[in-house]
């Protein structure tokens, strides 16, 4: 569907997600199905880039994104 990724025993991950995270995954899967192929391609590239970031940078960016999202929700 997305990219060929090594299958893992990650089925275990789903139960560990919070209800909000599960809802987000569901919503994004729906959005993905409707996205034009060029947007899908761009997101794939961003994903590959993201995976190559060092862990500390990923943490910082993730933290910033969470803060901004929280601020948006509070507005």
């Amino acid at each position, binding site marked *: *569907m997305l990219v060929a990724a090594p*299958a893992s025993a990650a089925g275990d991950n789903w139960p560990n997600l919070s209800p909000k995270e*599960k809802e987000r995954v569901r919503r*994004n899967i729906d959005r993905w199905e409707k996205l034009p192929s060029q947007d899908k391609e761009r997101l794939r590239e*961003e994903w590959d880039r993201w995976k190559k970031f060092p862990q500390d940078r990923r943490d910082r960016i993730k933290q910033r994104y969470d803060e901004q*999202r929280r601020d948006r929700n509070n507005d």
Partner: protein
Amino acid sequence: MKSVVPLEGACKSFEEDLVLYYYGENGDTDRCRVDQHLPQCAACRRFVDDLRRLLPDMAKSEALPQSFWDAYYRETLAKLAEQEKRKYWWRDLFAPLKIWAVPAFGTMAVAVLAIGLVLGRGDSKRVTDGSSDAIPQAILSDANQLEFFESMDMLEALSKLEEQDELKADPTTNQSSKLTSLAVNA
């Protein structure tokens, strides 16, 4: 011709004593008084005679025919049945059910209840935990894809977030580049 009504016309002051006299239940004084009065009063004698004549007949019970008792019995049963019916009216609701249908109906009700409970519990679990029904198995079984869809919103804003991160990580570089750009513009 004047008809004489039974048990009437006795002296009012003796009437009660005359009845007791008939039954032999008054005391000695009253009995002597009545004994002395009766020879002198025809009305009171007639009253006592009436008592002797009528009371034994009144006390007699009439022997009723068997047909009366049969009818009485049937009528009593009918009244009891009607009373029972009024008291337990709700039983009529189940009247169409055959005897065998009652346990069958009960079993069915228990089965429906059990299924409802199981499904209901499943639903509540689905609501609280979030069902994975709508998620393709390929995604559920792949942590990479699961993480991708979880991070998709962030990936869409990744470029901006990177810029912000770079600005924050190295503000001097950013300021100098800004100054450079200002100088270039000037």
